[in-house]
């Protein structure tokens, strides 16, 4: 391997490789891995970041036991699961549908795609702020449009504990459906045309072609999109923090929002670190299983 390149002047390739990778590695270790280890260490203590000078005691697994035994935490997990599941299902359906439509070539196709994609590039926190205006029960455009089609009278998407969980699903769907769409579209465009031609020769109906060619080819792409969205929405913070800030009560208090409250409002550093570790392990675990399943489907 080395013989061919060694002849040239300057530093050896091996030296350059390490010089080039080192800064990235050091930064990631310092700002990502070190804090993570720090968090894991704190999760075994009763540390409060706002009480400096107070004795920090090692409490073993107490924080973890407390979290896993707490009914409130399971409620938050349920709220998070509701949010993640519904956004994934709806975005998969609409995203795939739009991709199928966009795949029928028509004029202005590319321009339309770019315009549709715009919402997902915006700042989630700022999106959250301006949707509070659209959702305003007295003057909001959203409420006006809904009432235009069916007169519900005054209703408050953010203020009602039954509607609020759906208010965040709607905004997330508005924002992120283009993501699924774009990835599915790439999948559709990667299907070679001869597959369809062969199917035509075999007199397969359009429906059969869809089930046996289109769907299996696009599925890995759809699954990839859902993996990304799943991870992002499990960690969801910014959009919901500004839209409902977890309320009313705790109707939309997702795991991350709860974590922020515990860590930065109640300053229960040890306890919240344990919760953070649990969340991280959950994401990592789910992610790994999902990728395994995804690869199995791809190999079939």
């Amino acid at each position: 391997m080395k013989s061919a390149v060694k002849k040239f002047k300057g530093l050896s390739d091996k030296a350059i490789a390490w010089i080039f990778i080192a800064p990235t590695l050091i930064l990631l270790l310092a700002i990502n891995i070190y804090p993570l280890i720090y968090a894991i260490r704190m999760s075994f203590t009763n540390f409060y970041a706002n009480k400096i000078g107070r004795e920090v005691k090692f409490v073993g697994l107490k924080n973890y036991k407390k979290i896993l035994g707490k009914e409130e935490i399971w409620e938050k997990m349920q709220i998070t699961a509701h949010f993640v599941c519904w956004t994934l299902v709806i975005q998969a359906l609409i995203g795939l549908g739009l991709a199928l439509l966009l795949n029928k070539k028509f004029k202005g196709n590319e321009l339309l795609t770019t315009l549709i994609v715009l919402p997902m590039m915006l700042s989630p926190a700022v999106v959250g702020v301006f949707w509070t205006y659209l959702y305003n029960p007295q003057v909001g455009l959203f409420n006006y449009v809904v009432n235009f089609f069916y007169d519900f009278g005054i209703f408050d998407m953010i203020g009602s504990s039954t509607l609020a969980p759906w208010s965040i699903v709607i905004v997330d769907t508005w924002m992120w459906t283009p993501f699924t769409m774009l990835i599915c579209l790439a999948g559709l465009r990667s299907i070679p045309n001869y597959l369809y031609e062969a199917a035509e020769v075999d007199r397969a109906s359009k429906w059969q072609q869809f089930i046996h060619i289109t769907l299996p080819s696009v599925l890995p792409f759809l699954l990839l999109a859902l993996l990304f969205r799943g991870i992002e929405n499990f960690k969801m913070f910014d959009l919901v923090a500004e839209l409902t800030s977890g309320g009313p009560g705790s109707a939309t208090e997702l795991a991350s929002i709860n974590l922020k409250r515990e860590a930065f409002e109640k300053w229960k550093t040890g306890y919240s670190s344990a919760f953070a570790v649990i969340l991280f392990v959950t994401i990592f675990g789910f992610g790994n299983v999902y990728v395994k399943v995804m690869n199995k489907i791809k190999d079939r």
Partner: protein
Amino acid sequence: MMDTSRSPSEASGFSRKLAATIIIVYMVVTLIPISWMVATSFKSVDSAISYPPEVFFEPSLEGYVNLFTNRSRQPKDYLDTLPPPDTWYEELVRSREMVITGPSKFLPRYSNSLIIGFGATFFSVFLGSLAAYALSRFKVPLKDDLLFFILSTRMFPPIAVAVPIFIMYRKLGLGDTHVGMIILYTVVNLSLSVWLLKGFMDEIPREYEEAAMIDGYSRMQAFFKVVLPQATTGIAATAIFCMIFSWNEYAFAVLLTQFNAQTAPPFIPTIIGEGGLDWPAIGAGTTLFLIPVMIFTVVLRKHLLRGITFGAVRK
């Protein structure tokens, strides 16, 4: 984009028209919230809270004036004692029975967003392209594990590492500073930048730099003078993605900055609090904040897919 792959439903003109219609309807519906916010920024405060919502309205710059100034309400007899207003915006504020007390924090927050965004983008693209080149060209032990490790740093919920970073920054004196935020955003962007740039560099034939090295360039020179220029498009696309991320970031900004280095996303929501529900001012702040990203998106459209999937889907 060339249409080399033809879809099966190419033949039917009707189904194509139907598809186009549905897509256009979706596009219109999905753009309504954004257009509504831009429209609101040009409304007067009264017009923004009228019901039914006004689609046609008399344009006003009240929102923008309110965004950039701090004002205080004054009794009418006091206002009458003041000399007549010098500028159109003073006049506008005066007509609402208020006086301008000074510039608002919007401009400093916006420029913080720019400074931190550009700083972090520069460093993450620079460091990212070095690492990406090494990972693309050389045999690095445990390369796949290293790449996965770099990616996995994106799976942490930001709040999970925010507490330790908060404590660490407090000790180092980096809390609420531009330098601290630039370092933080650089690191968060590194995973994206390494993955994307590695993909772009994999596509540049090795023969180019090998030819240059035969001509007497060292590996370093070949990298800077041959590979980097070849990767310009990829680097530009990556830079825009990093910029958008830093521009939009909220969680770290709201937790780690307060007075000095606060960026626009945590600031914009606070406009609500200043002087009642000032929707036009929020609309104005939102509009000014979103415009750069929209322009970037149009510029990026060919690389969008690659960017949002960390290079997993190319095309």
